[in-house]
């Protein structure tokens, strides 16, 4: 039930806006993510953007995992 999906913010007007989630435009509430801007990536849960998705951190974590687990044949 805590299922949440990443998407890219299309537009925001006050606390309401839309997010592109895998090609679908999803009505989204931004009450709890007031600093988000159009173009940002967010995590959407139950119609609300609940947190920013940090794409740089996602790359960095993945790079770190690839280094940590390389060559363990």
């Amino acid at each position: 039930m805590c299922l949440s999906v990443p998407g890219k913010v299309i537009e925001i007007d006050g606390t309401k806006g839309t997010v592109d989630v895998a090609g679908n435009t999803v009505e989204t509430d931004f009450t709890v993510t007031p600093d988000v801007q159009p173009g940002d990536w967010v995590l959407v849960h139950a119609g609300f953007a609940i947190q920013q998705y940090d794409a740089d951190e996602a790359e960095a974590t993945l790079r770190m995992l690839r280094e940590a687990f390389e060559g363990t044949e």
Partner: protein
Amino acid sequence: MSIPENGYRDNELARRILDRIHTAMAGLDGVRLMEVCGTHTMAIGRFGLRAAMPDGLDLLSGPGCPVCVTPGSYIDAAARLAADGVTVVTFGDMVRVPGKETSLESARAAGGRVIVAGSVTAALDIAHREPGEVVFLAVGFETTAPTIAAAVRAARAEGSDNFSVLVSHKLVPPALRLIQDDPECAVSGFILPGHVSTIIGVAPYAFLVDEYSVPGVIAGFEPVDVLAGIESLVRMVRDGEPAVRNEYRRVVRREGNPAARAVVDEVFEPADTAWRGIGRVPLSGLRLRPDYAAFDAARRYGIDLDEYELPAGCRCGDVMRGRMEPADCPLFGDACTPDSPTGPCMVSVEGACSVRHKYEGK
């Protein structure tokens, strides 16, 4: 720019991490790791991770499915509201769950108005459009509570006096404490819920190490996320160096989401709450603060949510605490299947029994 989620589904990387789990488990036995999030239950089932684990390492599903832990009295009360002409709006998972006497599905078949929605916003919209009474079924953990709190606050600001919420929110840290306080349940480490943690951050888990010397890893939901979390936990168990680690940094900040917590704190306060099959747990849930009592459906309709009985023979309470494997329940697979479920853990698509039956058949 796109996001690198696909990288977390990299089979080759997943296989290497799995190899490392097997290596790290050498000489270890009786390692019990528990996840407490239905989305993790689903991920472990769907990706077949349980069967890939080495001997001596068990993956358990804790009380992390909100639908499963919602009291039967709550289901009955919601169904009665629908039968009495109230529009009941709910997340879809709740519809088939049996209470003690009835279910929302039965209430709907009998002509009650039960509307499935993906967001509380839909309920508020109906309350704006129509004069009738609208109740939203507010279940879920810390991830969902901010959305309900925001809607209740908006309803008060807009004077939507035909809208209310029936609250059965639960909190994750008291559930972890419940598990570790019971010697029959205590686990070696926790796979901590990624999306709950986007809200509460890292600090609320510190007691795991300080008071119970048990490690926890905040993990995402792709195969690489879950496997890396397990690998990290196994090493901490092996080395006797428990810590709480955040391995889902792309969405979990150390401080969580303070704006979300502020809305929750404004509207809700901690309260004792009943967990189905487990019982009443002190300060393990939320209730509306007195300022928002007008939006409390339990108060408005005189509903008492203080019982937590399970259907006869159902052992969901033991399954959710890691005391029993789903297949060891006498009803599992016979009197209780996904097509004809008896207990809440089989009804919910992310319940421990349903996931086990669907993906492992046992």
